[in-house]
């Protein structure tokens, strides 16, 4: 087994708002190994983005706070670092790709300048030529055609897919050991999305990088990830290898999610749909968080939170139905 790059234990992140405390992430544990892609899948508001932001320690201020848990990256405990130490790790040991390629690049700087900025910050390269070399090689890694000419371009001159590659190049230029990708393909067209995913598989083969892929799209998960963690209302309700999740989903929420995605290879008369809405993170129910929408709930479900059970093969589920 290759070594564990990131380990998150009992992470709890809350937002302190005018209306009350929002428990966005409430006791989440997972790990990622070298060369491995972990998919975190869930709906908006389930805490998947906040989990990513917590690892980066880039929670919106004021209000966002990590209130509990431990995050260990390559043996370093991230929550113990000072802001300055964390800045050195960010962009270097761990970096992030955001969803929208239109807004994650600064429109007034050239592509070359924006990648070089990251190189300059984290690598002690005195020579401008060496910096340019680094920039070009990271553009090559992202399979960007004719990188030397692209350096002088501005973001508006590029298409969405190309911009997202540039964002990837910025993230990869310092050879991080962990990459957090937050819905990086959602804003892209289907054929471009397929290119991007193939590209990341290729990068991972070349660099050993561990990837956390945050998404709501099961199609992307199926193509890209080795393991999946399904999040609901701030908790991981099920986690297993990708093929286990698709073939033997145990948690009713996972099952419902997979069934509610329309299929291309068959004609459905009616889609399975989960009625209702996720609970408010400000007023969480006492028992299982999915209980209210679950078609299969027991009496205990509304009273006590189900414990996490390992059913073998590193497949964990939190559900009273699973024995």
């Amino acid at each position, binding site marked *: 087994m290759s070594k564990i790059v990131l380990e998150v*234990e009992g992470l709890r992140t809350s937002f302190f708002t005018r209306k*009350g*405390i929002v428990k966005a992430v409430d006791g989440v544990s997972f790990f990622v190994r070298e060369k491995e892609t972990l998919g975190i899948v869930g709906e908006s508001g389930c805490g998947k983005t906040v989990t990513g932001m917590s690892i980066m320690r880039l929670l919106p201020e004021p209000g966002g*706070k990590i209130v*509990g*848990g*431990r995050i260990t990256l390559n043996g370093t405990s991230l*929550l113990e670092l000072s802001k300055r130490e964390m800045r050195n790790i960010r962009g270097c040991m761990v970096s992030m790709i955001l969803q929208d390629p239109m807004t994650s690049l600064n429109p007034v700087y050239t592509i070359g300048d924006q990648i070089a900025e990251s190189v300059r910050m984290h690598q002690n390269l005195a020579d401008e030529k060496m910096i340019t070399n680094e920039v070009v090689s990271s553009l090559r890694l992202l399979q960007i055609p004719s990188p030397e000419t692209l350096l002088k371009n501005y973001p508006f001159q590029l298409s969405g897919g190309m911009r997202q590659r540039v964002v990837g190049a910025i993230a990869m230029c310092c050879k991080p050991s962990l990459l957090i990708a937050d819905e990086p393909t959602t804003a892209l067209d289907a054929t471009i999305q397929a290119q991007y995913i193939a590209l990341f598989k290729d990068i991972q083969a070349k660099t050993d990088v561990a990837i956390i892929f945050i998404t709501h799209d099961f199609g992307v998960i199926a193509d890209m990830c080795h393991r999946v963690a399904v999040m609901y209302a701030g908790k991981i309700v099920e986690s297993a290898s990708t093929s286990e999740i698709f073939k033997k989903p145990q948690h009713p929420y996972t099952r419902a999610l997979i069934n509610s995605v329309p299929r291309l290879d068959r004609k459905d008369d009616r889609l399975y749909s989960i009625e209702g809405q996720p609970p408010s993170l400000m007023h969480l129910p006492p028992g299982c968080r999915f209980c209210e929408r679950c078609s299969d709930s027991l009496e205990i479900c509304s009273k006590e939170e189900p414990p996490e059970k390992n059913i073998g093969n590193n497949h964990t589920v939190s559900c009273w139905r699973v024995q």
Partner: protein
Amino acid sequence: MEYLRDINEAKIEKRMELRRKFSRLMLIIPVVILALLILSAIFAPLLAPYSPTEIAMTERLQPPSFLKGGSPKHFLGTDSLGRDVFSRIIYGARISLSFSLIVIFITGTVGTILGIISGYFGGRLDSFIMRFTDVALSIPAILIAIILAVGLGPSFKTIVIASSILGWSGYARVIRGEAMRLREVDFVAQARIIGSSRMRIMIKHIFPNVINPLIIIATMMVGLMIIIEATLSYLGAGIPPPNPSWGAMVNDGRNYLETAWWISFFPGFCIGLVVLSCNYLGDWIRDKLDPRLRRL
């Protein structure tokens, strides 16, 4: 399991609650200040201890009553002609506040209407209105004021007209930009799909959504208008000298700053107070009008 971090959420919550209460309290202060100033402007004859224009050369340049050597008769001291500063501030509020409110109302209305029309229609009409705006922005208000003063004679009305003729252009510029952006927003397309007329779209959909920038400019203008009134009056276009206005009072005390600072300081302080209060109040009005920020 023992974790490295374990923060007590309830404690933070309590602290935030206190902060919230405090900020709500802070909101009352500007409202009270503005209310007091407006009331004192309305009831000036009842409140002012002296006539604002009465000259008493024997009592000139007296410091405020709470300072060493101050006369108990004059709470905020007297100016170079022995006029009571406190009374002049109360009367001055009438001119300064009414001038700025009237001008802001006129310029804000004209500027918003032109801005919305220009931004929503676009094309030639937009180019026309915007060239017009550019011209208005480039003419110095003082020039217009002097010309008008010659034509109409110096008066309150003259400076209101002089400031309003050009003052709408700033509003029009900003509101136009906002209207142009809103024109492309989905809910405007939706309004067209259901068959709304352009008039209805501008009134129902564009206007309520340009209120935020409108309030920001309007509150910024309050202080500026008080100063402009003083400048125009000083140049002889506005209210002739013995009548008090805050701007004019600040100006009067200019030569005595070292020896009798109170002549300029107190009216200046009032201007600052009004500007600050208006800014707070503007934020509050904005929040109240916006359903997304309204507290339940």
